[in-house]
């Protein structure tokens, strides 16, 4: 992989550029000849800030929409009432595709690929992509001259899907280039797992899986609408089979290539470790209902299995860092959360028992026994209060008042714990980013690889331009301070109270950062149990960490 070494000095840092949000105007002269000007704005992929990517995205969107429209055309109950709309959409699509074809034909002499040919336009016409573009619109015009069977026409319209190759093939070539000399398994790994070898194809693959997940979940949701399910039962079945096929292949590829991941190297143990991972378990659950439904539909509740397919939505959490942070927080805070859950269970049982004791005689149908009263206890303690069951006796009501107050406090503990732990984790991650930034900026400049790291981290932590800017300013000031004092001996710093103050602030900042990054429980154990810090030192440490 070739890496561009673009150095940006600290004075030139442009956060928008680092975050990739820069609205860089395209460097296209308005004095260019019309053909070149049009090509530069609409079709040239090498000019940043032009409309090429937008044009490609919209064309891609139109192609995918065409696919769905074609699917719906096969459902008479949908097609017949909206026949005209379907026709208008077809005309619109053909119009856009024709304009695109003619534009590419007109601009072919400006295209790098054809400009060197003797007859660039002829070369374009016979190029594979142009043939695909032609086939995408030709059937529409063909029917104007020759009576073509509607079914044949619909089949020919499927050729429009081939236009997607315009996006996939360049990505595939880039993928091959990135993976030259690598093994088959490494290539599978590059496609499935995010890595430096994946390139655009990996992004397309991820997007494709995401679309499959959304489609499949949408289908499950729509299946619950009786009128829709009645019409599209067969289509939903086919979609489910296709999606499960894709997910099954993905699951196998993931299991096969996971040994290329660091920490999963052993052929069997590594794969078992991968299979036990949460995200792989989710992948497995996403395909399981399909197989169970076919073989065990007389033993299992089909509706349960169908709803179970909604677990596919969890597949999208693979690329979602917020979910990963939440899992990390849950793992870290598990002992505290389980302790508060234990108290909650005690309180629920106590409330249910008291409720049964006071109310059973007055309302034997509602407070039948302690297990059935647990429902009322949970609803009351969680402040939901449906009101379908309520105490009527004086002691029962008095007890409910007291326990409802306690319940508000106890049931709020896990939520408060989680939210504070979540925000702590974010602060911690930002501090880590700050230290990374500090290390990166120590040499006085940022290179392209470092920009990529900052961009990825800023995206992961959902930092805005202002936040990154503030971090950079802080580091900048810290570096300046360090440069100012680092060469001074402590007695000279002490001689100047303003220097001493800045130095003190820097030291406190360092201690605070240390407190965020260190394993607190381990630190406390060493400090308290082994007596490595005096009580005053420990108190000061806690004070600086805002833990006293």
């Amino acid at each position, binding site marked *: 992989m070739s890496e561009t070494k673009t150095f940006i000095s600290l004075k030139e840092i442009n956060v928008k550029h680092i975050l990739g949000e820069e609205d860089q105007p395209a460097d296209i002269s308005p004095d260019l000849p019309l053909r070149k000007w049009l090509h530069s704005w609409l079709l040239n992929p090498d000019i940043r800030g032009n409309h090429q990517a937008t044009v490609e995205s919209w064309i891609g969107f139109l192609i995918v929409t065409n696919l769905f429209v074609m699917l719906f055309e096969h459902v008479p109950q949908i097609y017949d009432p909206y026949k005209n709309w379907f026709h208008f959409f077809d005309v619109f699509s053909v119009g856009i595709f024709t304009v695109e074809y003619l534009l590419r034909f007109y601009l072919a002499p400006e295209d790098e690929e054809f400009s060197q040919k003797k007859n660039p336009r002829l070369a374009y016409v016979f190029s594979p992509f142009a043939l695909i573009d032609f086939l995408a619109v030709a059937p529409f015009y063909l029917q104007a001259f020759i009576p073509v069977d509607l079914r044949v026409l619909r089949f020919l319209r499927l050729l429009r899907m081939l236009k997607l190759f315009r996006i996939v093939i360049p990505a595939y070539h880039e993928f091959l280039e990135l993976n030259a000399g690598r093994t088959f398994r490494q290539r599978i790994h590059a496609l499935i797992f995010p890595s430096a070898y994946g390139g655009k194809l990996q992004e397309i693959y991820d997007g494709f899986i995401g679309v499959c997940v959304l489609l499949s979940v949408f289908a499950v949701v729509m299946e619950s609408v009786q009128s829709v399910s009645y019409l599209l*039962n067969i289509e939903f079945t*086919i979609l489910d089979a296709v999606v499960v096929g894709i997910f099954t292949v993905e699951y196998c590829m993931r299991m096969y290539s996971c040994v290329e991941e660091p920490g999963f190297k052993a052929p069997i143990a590594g794969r078992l470790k991968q299979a036990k991972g949460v995200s792989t378990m989710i992948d497995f659950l996403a395909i399981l209902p399909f197989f169970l439904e076919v073989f065990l539909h007389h033993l299992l509740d089909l509706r349960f299995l169908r709803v179970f397919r909604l677990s596919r939505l969890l597949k999208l959490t693979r690329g979602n860092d917020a979910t990963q942070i939440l899992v990390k927080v849950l793992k870290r805070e598990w002992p505290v959360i389980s302790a508060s859950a234990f108290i909650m269970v005690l309180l629920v049982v106590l409330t249910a028992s008291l409720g049964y004791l006071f109310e059973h005689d007055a309302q034997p149908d509602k407070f039948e026994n302690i297990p059935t009263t647990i429902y009322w206890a949970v609803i009351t303690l969680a402040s939901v209060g449906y009101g379908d069951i309520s105490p009527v006796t004086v002691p029962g009501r008095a007890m409910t008042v007291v326990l409802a107050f306690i319940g508000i406090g106890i049931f709020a503990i896990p939520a408060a714990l989680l939210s504070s732990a979540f925000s702590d984790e974010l602060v911690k991650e930002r501090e880590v980013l700050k230290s990374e930034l500090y290390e990166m900026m120590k040499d006085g400049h940022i290179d392209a690889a470092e920009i990529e790291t900052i961009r990825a981290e800023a995206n992961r932590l959902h930092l805005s331009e202002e936040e990154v800017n503030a971090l950079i300013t802080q580091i900048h000031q810290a570096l300046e301070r360090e440069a100012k004092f680092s060469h001074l001996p402590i007695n000279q710093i002490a001689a100047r109270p303003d220097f001493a103050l800045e130095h003190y602030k820097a030291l406190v900042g360092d201690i605070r950062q240390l407190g965020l990054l260190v394993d607190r429980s381990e630190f406390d154990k060493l400090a308290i149990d082994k007596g490595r810090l005096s009580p005053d030192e420990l108190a000061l440490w806690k004070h600086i960490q805002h833990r006293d």
Partner: protein
Amino acid sequence: MKFTTGDYIFLSFMAVVVVAVVWIGILAHEEASKTEGAKRNGEQLVAWLTEAGTQRANPDYSIGACAAGGKAPEAIPVAAAAAEAAPAPEGAASSSEAAPAAPVKEAAKGPNTWGACTEQMFSLPAFKDMKNPFFEERPQFVAACVPSDATLTGALVVEKLVPTPVGSSIPFVASQLVDTDLIDGKLQLRVSVCDKGSYAIKIAEFEF
């Protein structure tokens, strides 16, 4: 790109997996098609009953057993008569009685009863070849679709809807239209079919 033995094993495994998924997909499609077939049966029944509902009050209505206003069945076709002679369970009223819709006994098919009407209806050319796609037999009428009972898949459920008094929380009460029920007046009906999991799929509500 070099392929190792492991790669070949993986590719072979993938081929087996893809074939298995395709095969299971075809099975699922076949099952779904059977449910579609059952729906078509229900739709055909609804279409016929709706059409009959508009004409059966006429004095010259040809399907006597289904006529409104107390008209006796004039001629039960030979096929139905032959079927009548065969031993059969009493009607098909409950979900546990999952046998195909059997001809009803004498008491159940008096003039203008639902049993007599369906008997005559199934002797018509339009219904003669009607089959439950799951069992390749004549579709049975059952009281309700019960998910735990796999024998009910593809069965038809015909319920009469009786409006409740004004102010009730439910607009009507549904009960199975059994063979002995008189049909000489206007009826509000609901037809459903049982899908492959024996869950009810509502086809339509209409006036008969």
